[in-house]
């Protein structure tokens, strides 16, 4: 007799009670997928444990990646530094003090080669959190695959490439919304044709929530962004069932346990319905909302930082009970700095304990049929749909962004939440209740201050050594492509292969598209 939930063929409780793959009707894996996208969920395939990581130089981040893979992590997730995220090179005056600080600095294909040194891209899936310069980093990733001899068709990964939530929440935009949407669509089209197992956009509510939205707003704005990407891809001439199966989503997991679970369930139901009724998708894969979850960075506290381990575990459990496909758990020290190695290991262990000890993976949608969870799922759905209708009435997400509608709603929600914490109406343990004078001190990750110089020296050497005539020709071709209507990815690939830098390519686009400045709302 096999005891415990660890036998995947016939999971049992610790007392030996055999368990069905799911209980009740309708079954998970059936339209509208409220209960999950697979009939057997984690019995057949565990979520991907994917810790977002990147700091300092590409060589240093490469070492962290190899460490995480050794510790049993199943995929990589690249965090870029702010200059890379903003499409500028380490020697740009605005990059002062930011190089390698909150992510890894990638200025050219040479850096990307170092980043993935010894990591076979046909075996390890890679997620890249990059938005305005997403086509550039995507091209660098493809070029590394070429050098590794890996065909595009074997590449498995995700590009965030979600520009709309940049205007709404994270604010790392470079160009006006419409040319930016054209670039997003260039990637979607290219990936659909040439990189079929790759997710070319990760439609993200995470940052919307981190900027202070409610769960309902996160749900509504994210799905409405998704509709916008679908409409642009259709206008490009792609068939709905050609690209829709590769759209992926990214949600936050915050403190309100059942509301989070209801949010994920409602997201699947709304998306399946929208895809079938609004866009007439036929392929069941087009209807299934797949998503990554990250626990809420904004919920982590500076006070009593070890409490963050517990918060993160509960948030991660909500993600799992809500049926996530991949998961990042935050580290306890992230209110202070980028996570140290011990902290990140504990965060990964948190996922492993949920996956392998708690038994929650045995039964799909274990909370399905709960009066409370079903009612809350329905209410989240109704409220999100009401928001989505308001955005439709404004003419879609781009006009809504131009009128500051989502930005204003988030700013109000964020201020309201903070006031509730300040007044004590919303309890945060260690912050406004159960406080203590003595705080535990943490050992924090220090970014080597010589990183900026290392990256600058490498960049200067690269500019001196490369074939600059080839770079200029590639950038000129790119400028022409950007000014026209053709897909820009082949030209970006040529520029990247010639070792044009992230900044040079992004500035080339900027020369054609112009910049963007938001009207700040308070």
């Amino acid at each position, binding site marked *: 007799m096999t005891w415990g939930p660890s036998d995947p063929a016939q999971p049992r409780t610790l007392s030996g009670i055999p368990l069905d793959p799911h209980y009740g009707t309708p079954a998970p894996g059936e339209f509208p997928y409220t209960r999950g996208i697979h009939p057997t969920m984690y019995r057949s395939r565990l979520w991907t444990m994917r810790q977002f990581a990147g700091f300092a130089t590409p060589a240093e981040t490469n070492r962290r990646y190899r460490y995480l893979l050794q510790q049993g992590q199943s995929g990589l997730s690249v965090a870029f530094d*702010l200059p890379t*995220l903003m499409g500028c090179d380490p020697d740009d005056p605005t990059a002062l003090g930011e190089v390698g600080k909150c992510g890894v600095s990638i200025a050219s294909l040479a850096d990307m080669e170092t980043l993935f040194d010894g990591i076979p891209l046909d075996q390890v899936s890679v997620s890249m959190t990059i938005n305005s310069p997403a086509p550039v980093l995507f091209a660098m990733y493809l070029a590394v695959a070429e050098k590794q001899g890996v065909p595009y068709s074997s590449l498995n990964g995700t590009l965030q490439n979600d520009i709309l939530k940049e205007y709404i929440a994270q*604010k790392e935009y470079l160009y006006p919304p419409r040319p930016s949407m054209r670039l997003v669509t260039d990637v979607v089209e290219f990936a659909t044709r040439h990189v079929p197992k790759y997710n070319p956009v990760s439609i993200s509510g995470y940052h919307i929530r981190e900027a202070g939205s409610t769960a309902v707003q996160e749900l509504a704005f994210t799905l409405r962004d998704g509709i916008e990407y679908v409409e642009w891809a259709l206008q490009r001439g792609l068939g709905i069932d050609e690209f829709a199966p590769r759209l992926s989503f990214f949600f936050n997991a915050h403190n309100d346990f059942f509301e989070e679970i209801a949010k994920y369930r409602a997201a699947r139901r709304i998306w399946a319905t929208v895809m079938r009724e609004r866009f007439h998708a036929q392929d069941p894969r087009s209807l299934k909302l797949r998503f990554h979850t990250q626990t809420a960075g*904004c919920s982590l506290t500076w006070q009593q930082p070890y409490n963050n381990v517990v918060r993160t575990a509960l948030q991660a459990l909500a993600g799992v009970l809500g049926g996530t496909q991949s998961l990042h758990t935050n580290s306890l020290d992230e209110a202070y700095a980028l996570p140290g190695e011990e902290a990140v290991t504990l965060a990964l262990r948190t996922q492993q304990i949920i996956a392998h000890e708690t038994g929650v993976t045995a039964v799909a949608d274990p909370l399905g049929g709960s009066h409370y969870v079903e009612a809350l799922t329905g209410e989240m759905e109704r409220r999100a749909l009401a928001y989505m209708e308001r955005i439709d009435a404004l003419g879609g997400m781009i006009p809504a962004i131009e009128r500051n509608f989502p930005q204003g709603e988030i700013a109000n929600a964020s201020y309201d939440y903070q006031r509730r914490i300040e007044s004590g109406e919303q309890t945060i343990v260690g912050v406004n209740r159960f406080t203590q004078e003595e705080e535990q001190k943490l050992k924090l990750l220090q970014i080597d201050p010589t990183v900026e110089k290392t990256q600058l020296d490498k960049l200067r050497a690269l500019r001196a050594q490369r074939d600059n005539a080839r770079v200029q020709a590639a950038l000129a071709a790119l400028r022409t492509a950007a000014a026209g209507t053709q897909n820009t990815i082949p030209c970006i690939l040529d520029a990247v292969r010639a070792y044009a830098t992230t900044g040079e390519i992004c500035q080339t686009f900027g020369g054609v598209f112009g910049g963007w400045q938001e009207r700040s709302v308070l």
Partner: protein
Amino acid sequence: MDPMIRVLVAKPGLDGHDRGAKIIARALRDAGMEVIYTGLRQTPEMIVNAALQEDVQVIGLSILSGAHNAIVPRVMDLLKEKEMDDVLVVVGGIIPDEDAANLKKLGVAAVFQPGAALEEVVAFVKSAARVAS
């Protein structure tokens, strides 16, 4: 009645995380101060010029990206250059303890780390701006 305290809330550097800056700006406004918010991606030069133009008593800098050691000293230098040393500078964001101590040595009046209460920030700005004026 006291004259209204004028505050410039600024987001220097490349960091786009403006949740904190906006909350602080609103809280200061709700406490009766006149608040000018610069918006994102301001260089130290732009911030000091805005402070001069707007004739503020207080500059609040919000930095979450780790670039504070490069940005804040530059702002302090420019204020000295323009003989605006009387402008009170407060910094908020993810600032480690050692860095906070160093910034204070440069003349920063207060550093508010994560977990600081709004009330504390408002009370500090109110009393410090009064003493300075």
